[in-house]
């Protein structure tokens, strides 16, 4: 049995299972709600129930008092749904969120390309075009009981009729093995989406710094193509890292875009390129390339980070030491129930 949970002021609707807490449902859907103790004592996660019935669970009578229960408050960490719910939470309204509805799409694989020794590009022509914001992701439904896998859309929203996914083969990974070894052009396949809240904060009108590594290029690429198409005039910088030149896919495309658009700056960085290979660009990691490119001063930018956890971590530290802080840093990151339980300081919320 599951209910619909609508979270205001985001206006986003997600599923909540029987017995699942509001906090758990929200976090698993990638929506951060303020929380701390997670067992009904501290009241950090207090939210207003605007519509529907909740069961208050273990909420302490001091953290959630009778008059508050009467006024429709509940503690998200303890409350479970007895009907469809609308809650009002203390989350920042995001003027850039289009809150597009998640839908199922079916399509046909129209093209498969080997982008690097480990990454394949997969194009899917959809029966009906998908509306999404550059940076968002979809779930790809794979046959044979594999289930679905999440991939960021690498193509711009303007090309919603044929979407591109870049899939890195994960050693031992069932889903990526299917895409790499079995998937054929002409095969019917379904996706659902768009998901995620990782998109450019265009309304802030600040220069855009994108940092990408490994297979994290998809969202930044979609964002860049989208921004350039619509004539975004402020500086856009892509710091893009791979281990070696043969893994640096779409390098030529970005070189060409940089030549074409004076406000787009492209800084590729290779961390393990053999000596004497003829590579004349930056050697080192993404965060090191960024520090050099910005002379350790990131103030006035908004930064979008996409890549493996170690890269994200190093980039956040570099950005903060270059005076760019949490409110201007965005990462493609999901807060799982496991994250909510691990020992983590409450110093940062979103990064």
């Amino acid at each position: 049995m599951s209910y619909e949970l609508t979270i205001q002021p985001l206006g986003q609707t997600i599923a909540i299972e029987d017995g699942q807490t509001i906090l758990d449902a929200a976090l698993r859907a990638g929506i951060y709600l303020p929380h701390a103790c997670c067992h009904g004592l501290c009241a950090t996660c207090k939210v207003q129930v605007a519509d529907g019935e909740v069961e208050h669970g273990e909420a302490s009578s001091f953290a959630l008092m009778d008059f508050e229960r009467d006024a429709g408050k509940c503690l998200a960490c303890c409350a479970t749904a007895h009907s469809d719910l609308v809650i009002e939470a203390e989350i920042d309204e995001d003027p850039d969120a289009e809150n597009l509805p998640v839908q199922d799409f079916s399509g046909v694989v129209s093209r498969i390309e080997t982008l690097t020794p480990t990454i394949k590009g997969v194009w899917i022509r959809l029966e009906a075009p998908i509306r999404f914001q550059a940076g968002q992701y979809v779930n790809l439904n794979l046959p044979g009981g594999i289930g679905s896998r999440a991939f960021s859309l690498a193509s711009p929203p303007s090309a919603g009729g044929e979407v591109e996914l870049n899939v890195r083969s994960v050693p031992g990974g069932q889903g990526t093995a299917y895409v790499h070894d079995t998937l054929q052009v002409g095969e019917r396949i379904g996706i659902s989406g768009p998901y995620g809240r990782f998109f450019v904060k265009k309304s802030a009108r600040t220069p855009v710094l994108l940092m990408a590594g490994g297979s994290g290029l998809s969202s930044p690429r979609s964002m860049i193509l989208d921004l350039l198409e619509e004539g975004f005039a402020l500086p856009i910088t892509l710091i893009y890292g791979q281990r070696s030149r043969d893994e640096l896919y779409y390098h030529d495309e970005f070189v060409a875009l940089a030549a074409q658009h004076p406000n787009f700056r492209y800084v590729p960085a290779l961390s393990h390129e053999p000596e004497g290979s003829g590579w004349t660009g930056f050697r080192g990691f993404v965060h090191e390339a960024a520090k050099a490119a910005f002379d350790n001063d990131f103030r006035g930018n908004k930064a979008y980070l996409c890549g493996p956890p170690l890269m994200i971590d190093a980039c956040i530290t570099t950005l903060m030491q270059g005076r760019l802080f949490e409110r201007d840093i965005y990462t493609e990151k999901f807060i799982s129930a496991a994250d909510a339980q691990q020992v983590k300081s409450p110093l940062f919320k979103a990064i």
Partner: protein
Amino acid sequence: MDMKVSKKKLGLKERYRLMTRDLGWDTTYQPKDKVLPYVGYEGIKIHDWDKWEDPFRLTMDSYWKYQAEKERKFYAIIDAHAQNNGHLNLTDARYLSALKIFLQAISPGEYAAHKGFARVGREFPGVGTQVACQMQAIDEIRHAQTQIHAMSNYNRYYNGFHAFADQRDRIWYTSVARSFFDDAMSAGPFEFMIAIGFSFEYVLTNLLFVPFMSGAAYNGDMATVTFGFSAQSDEARHMTLGLECIKFMLEQDPANVPIVQGWIDKWFWRGFRVLGLVSTMMDYMLPKRVMSWREAWNIYGVENGGALFKDLARYGITPPKGWDDAEKGIDHMSHQFMLGLYQWSFGTAFHSWIPSDEDMAWLSAKYPDTFDKHYRPRWNHIRKLAAAGTPFKNYGLAKLCQTCQLPTVFTEPDDPTLTCHRETTYKGEKYHFCSDGCQHIFDNEPEKYIQAWLPMPQLFQDPIKGDLGEWMKWVSLIDGKDNGDYAGSEDQQHFEAWRGLATTNQ
């Protein structure tokens, strides 16, 4: 298909902003820095007060409503506890020693925090900050009052509760906490926020309140447990305020980083010394123990503190300077402190005792590397003296640390057989310290600490003039009732007699 359109209304954040930020105004007939003169002299540079994110998001009208309801609930339970002779549900009256120390040393700290927040709320320019500090000021006075009320019922039956305010001001073992708060209250507004909002409320509060409130629950003290629940719903806000303040300072200007680091070093170590009291309560004074001090440190210090300093490292902040020395002291401090309290027990307004065989077996299991080697032999010796009718009393005066004001009973970080002692000569006077941490704090601000009131020198001043009886009068300690060994005390006799009446037909 289009998305569901819902009625547009103000978000909670926006509503909060309208109810607080818009309360602010710009001064007209005096320049702002004349109205708010204290924010500059500590060297903290703030460029944009509007970057302060309000962690509370609570408006005054709802704040009053919440707190009033909490009071009603709290006092209903306290009354029931008093009417039903709740004190006889305690595991054992030894537990009361922990309670007495808390009332004499920590509850007045809540009151001091109240005064401090009221003051800094006036001194900070940002409206968000002012509102947050104002609410915390009211929280803190409420905590002080409710703690005192929760414990007042014990004062009707047991000794040592009647003069906590005098003992906060005058007795020796409470001055570690008193000087911590006095130091914070006489610092600038930003340092106060690091001292109380960050070090005390965030880094130390879990080590102080969680073991203490769990200790109350384990030992049948429902009055204190109720206080704990009532306060915990405020603590989350307090911690958030402390963290917000430190982020704000670190993000506003790179020049703030070394200043904040210095305060973190200082206030971690000052707080750690206050925790000496807590370690002893946890390991020795709870008849039914919750966890050892070492176990509490591993969870709240090493794990939670470690996670925090890992995040703060992004700002260029390093773990507090005394962190390693603290870790080295964990397995020793409660034993060293309890030995100190026992040998000076004629001068404590609570009882101490020689641990039983069962207590020592527990201590040995919890401290396998230190208890049997260093502390069991001393307790055995003390026990032998007590059995021979010559109990061990130290009538000498302890050498006090000029910074934390504790007797210098702690050992060298790397040698538990050698008492740690440091000295600084300043303007021809010699000052003593219990540790490198306390000496560094003094050396950094000697003019502040040479003015410190210390309980031992007071003994030779008016009105005491070196007379122990006069001293007892002056600190409101009743000899033979409040002090000494638990064994044979009035508290022990009364508790056993009353409990006997309540649970048997005699």
